[in-house]
């Protein structure tokens, strides 16, 4: 019984993925819902694509968005990583182990 359910879930997921993979451009294009390949709002994309090379002198538009136009996102991500390392260090220092280090 569980094998039949597993195979059914596998078949449904695989057919869904195959439909998306083989028709990437027109999946949900007309109307509401997911829009792979045809985003509905393109004004911001056109601005970045046409002006990023002149304004930041960077060939990689993704990097120019991540570090320049949307720099606060990267600042938040760096702070999240810093806080994660802080939490790992504070949590693991309670365990026994390498006490004679530094």
């Amino acid at each position: 019984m569980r094998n039949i359910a597993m195979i059914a879930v596998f078949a449904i997921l695989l057919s869904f993925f195959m439909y998306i993979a083989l028709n990437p451009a027109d999946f949900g294009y007309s109307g509401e819902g997911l829009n792979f390949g045809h985003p509905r709002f393109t004004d911001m994309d056109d601005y970045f694509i046409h002006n990023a090379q002149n304004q930041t002198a960077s060939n990689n538009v993704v990097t120019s968005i991540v570090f320049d136009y949307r720099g606060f996102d990267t600042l938040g991500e760096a702070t999240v990583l810093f806080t994660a390392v802080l939490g790992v260090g504070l949590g693991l220092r309670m365990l026994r182990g390498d006490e004679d280090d530094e």
Partner: protein
Amino acid sequence: MMSKIVRTQANFLYPLILIFGFYIVMHGHLTPGGGFQGGAVIATGIALVVVAYGYEKIKRWIKKTHLTAAEGIGLLCFIITAFIGIGTSFFYNFLANSGLIFGESIPYGINPGYLNTAGTLPIMNLAVGIEVLGGLGAIILYMMAYGREVSE
């Protein structure tokens, strides 16, 4: 400490992984990748040598304090670089098209890619790369250092 085969292969692969990681960091404004990805690749190299040699030997070569210091210094450099352009706005790219270091202009469209461009982006890439390599390497070393191994 693993077998001699693993250690020899780790000796061979470690400099290549480090070079590839720093390549990703320094060419972040030209090719896909950037500070975060390059730092993650370098931390993978650190994880390779830690797994191959064991923590008892590796803690004399790579110290946790150095990695956490690198993390703090990277984050500080990132924020300072963002603050220098405060005259216009926070995160203002004051070096782009200025003629100074990293200040050359590029033509619009397809071009071969020049390293001396993009203003503050390479500096921020380097800062974030140092921060990420310190942070993720420190997580690996903390996991290896504390707690004791369970034998079944």
